[in-house]
């Protein structure tokens, strides 16, 4: 294991300063901050990844179907997306979590539902540009089914922007989950999670200690890092070259 101590292991007094044993000091219960950051990464990042993938599955599938089928189905999906997007995300999440309780499955599903309309809109727009091409007409006239059209003809031509969007979306999902944890409705203690770690140690900020800033910094660092990767992927996928 990378982490030197257990996730919920109390090893020293509360708020102990950093030393050779505890690289980042201890939290409000005397647990090792460094170990909890590492465990938190697994929970928060893993959860965010899961939620983003689910959001993409729903959004992209909906977008592709809407672009291919068109007509009333397209209209219906578009309005559905509008309805979800019109509700402020945090309020929607809080509402759902208070109704269904705060277990991990509910968090993942709720966050995925919140972010899927954005994926839906992007996919529909990208696929919309592809479905008007002559090669799609040729495939339709050949008698190919909708599923073949989506999988073989449209998807290969829409992946580049979708991959880039995946990175961006991941950041937003991650921030929302961290925000929910900070409010106490996300991942429940004693499970380590960056958002709740900020909250648990928040009182310390008034004493001029940096402990609550550490998980906050981790959140910021991850967000910026993912954005850099996304920028690089966008650059690669757009085929732009410096002249």
């Amino acid at each position, binding site marked *: 294991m990378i982490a030197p101590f257990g996730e919920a292991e109390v090893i020293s007094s509360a708020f102990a300063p950093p030393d050779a044993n505890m690289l980042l000091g201890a939290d409000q219960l005397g647990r090792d901050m460094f170990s909890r950051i590492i465990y938190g990464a697994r929970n928060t990042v893993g959860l965010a990844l899961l939620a983003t993938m689910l959001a993409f599955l729903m959004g992209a599938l909906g977008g592709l179907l809407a672009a291919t089928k068109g007509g009333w189905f397209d209209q219906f999906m578009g309005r559905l997306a509008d309805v979800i997007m019109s509700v402020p995300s945090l309020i929607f999440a809080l509402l759902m979590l208070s109704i269904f309780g705060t277990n991990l499955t509910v968090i993942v599903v709720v966050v995925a539902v919140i972010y899927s309309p954005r994926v839906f809109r992007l996919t529909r727009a990208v696929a919309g540009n592809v479905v008007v*091409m*002559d*090669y799609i*007409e*040729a495939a*339709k*006239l*050949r*008698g*190919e089914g909708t599923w073949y059209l989506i999988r*073989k*003809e449209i998807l*290969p*031509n829409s992946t580049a922007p979708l991959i880039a969007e995946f990175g961006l979306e991941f950041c937003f999902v991650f921030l929302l989950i961290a925000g929910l944890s900070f409010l106490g409705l996300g991942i429940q203690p004693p499970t380590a999670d960056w958002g709740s770690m900020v909250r648990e140690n928040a009182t310390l900020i008034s004493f001029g200690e940096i402990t609550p800033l550490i998980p906050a910094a981790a959140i910021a660092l991850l967000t910026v890092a993912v954005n850099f990767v996304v920028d690089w992927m966008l650059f690669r996928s757009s085929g732009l*070259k410096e*002249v």
Partner: protein
Amino acid sequence: MVPKKDVLLEIKDLRIEGYSDEKWIEIVHGIDLTLHKGEVLGLIGESGAGKSTIGLASMGFARDGCRISGGSIEFDGMELTTTPENDLRALRGSRIAYVAQSAAASFNPAHRIIDQHTEAPIQYRIQKRVEAQEDAMELYHRLRLPNPDEIGFRYPHQVSGGQLQRAMTAMAMACRPDLIIFDEPTTALDVTTQIEVLAAIRDIVDQFNTAAIYITHDLAVVAQMADTIKVLLKGEEVEEAPTAQMLDKPKEEYTKSLWAVRSFKRPQKQRPTGADAVPIVSVQGIDAAYGKTKVLDDVSFDIYPGMTVAVVGESGSGKSTTARCITGLLPPTKGKILFKGEELPARYQDRSKDQLRQAQMIYQMADTALNPKIRICDIIGRPAQFYSGLHGGALKTRVDELLDLIELDPAKFYSRYPPELSGGQKQRVGIARALAADPAFIICDEVTSALDQLVAEGILKLLDRLQQEFNLAYMFITHDLATVRSIADEVVVMQRGKVVEQGPKDEMFTPPHHPYTDLLLSSVPEMDPNWLTTLLEERGVDDIGEAADV
């Protein structure tokens, strides 16, 4: 031959480099060019010959990703390669003007035509707004635009393509430049519209004694316009000569091959007769509409096995719409389509797999007709797999066989992607995809109009060979009558959604014609420098504008 006058533009050993794959590659290899005041020089060559690049370079301009790497461009005593960008900008628009291929794309749709016209004269403080507007109307008069006093106050989308191209020429004239560069100004226009634009350009260039560089790939057009013709190939000069001499006896092999392209002709076939002769496709009295707008009105024609029926007409005449009705993409509102004597369901969704297989389509733009992310073997293999259930080794054999048919080496092309192919090769793959279904009938929608003449001829020969081999019936949609002459057996002339005349080709090309057929036929430029002059005299000069609005 233009008498020796003052030299206006002198280009010596011009070299231009383009940036690709992270390297600078020379694309224009030392071109010399001399243009006198009032002279018109025609630049011709296929795509990639460097025509447009040289045209732009005569304004001291290199496109993004290009740079002028050597040689000199001297315009009226001024060396453009060393002139600072600011001075060059003052020169462009006022003394050198540029007319682009697509006027529709070059006008800003958010401003009125006259405001765009007067921008340059006002900017350069040559005229005040009111004067500039009056001058614009004067130019519109001279270019014989309809309602010259009023047309400038419309937005670009409110006037037709030919009128827009003339308005653009007027705009180029706004500052009375010494030199105008015409970059394929009529390529995107129908033959009937092309005439008026050509006449207008020639007129106005004459009136103001403006020098011009006329860039085109159409020899017959350049023959009407230019005093001198320069033939280019891959950034190098092939030959240059005065127009008449160039047309009479070209020296170089390449020029001769360009001249000879239009000579491809195959014997005309007769309709089969007898009781068992059933047309493969019979269109019977179909009407069609987009929304509430009726676009087809009682269209009927038959196509027999092994024959080519050319459907001709201007854009908007309903040629492609007819094809969409036959394929079932746009169900007709009235009438029916018979296939081998049996009625086809109107919507393609209701047709059987076998009905879909028998009628295939080849598209105009091979770029958008082939999925760029699918390998050639899969593009061609899919119909074979889909209809005949071939897979594994049998499928590969079939794909190789098809690649051989379209004269592409299977070893080289089997696993490549469409973007790696040239325009002609892509079109061949499009043909192979249609053949893979083993059809009886193929719709060819303007298959050669996006290609260079030499490449187009190769495609036509290929289609002809395949027709003989497999007894295919073609419905050949085109606006190019030269193509019709070379491969059609029967011709259907369409105008505004109606069939105005139809019959065997030789009948169609001999008078008497329907007036519209006559207009179409006489509008095709011929390889005779006096053709335009003669034609205009025959029609009466005032008729040009009307001809276009037919």
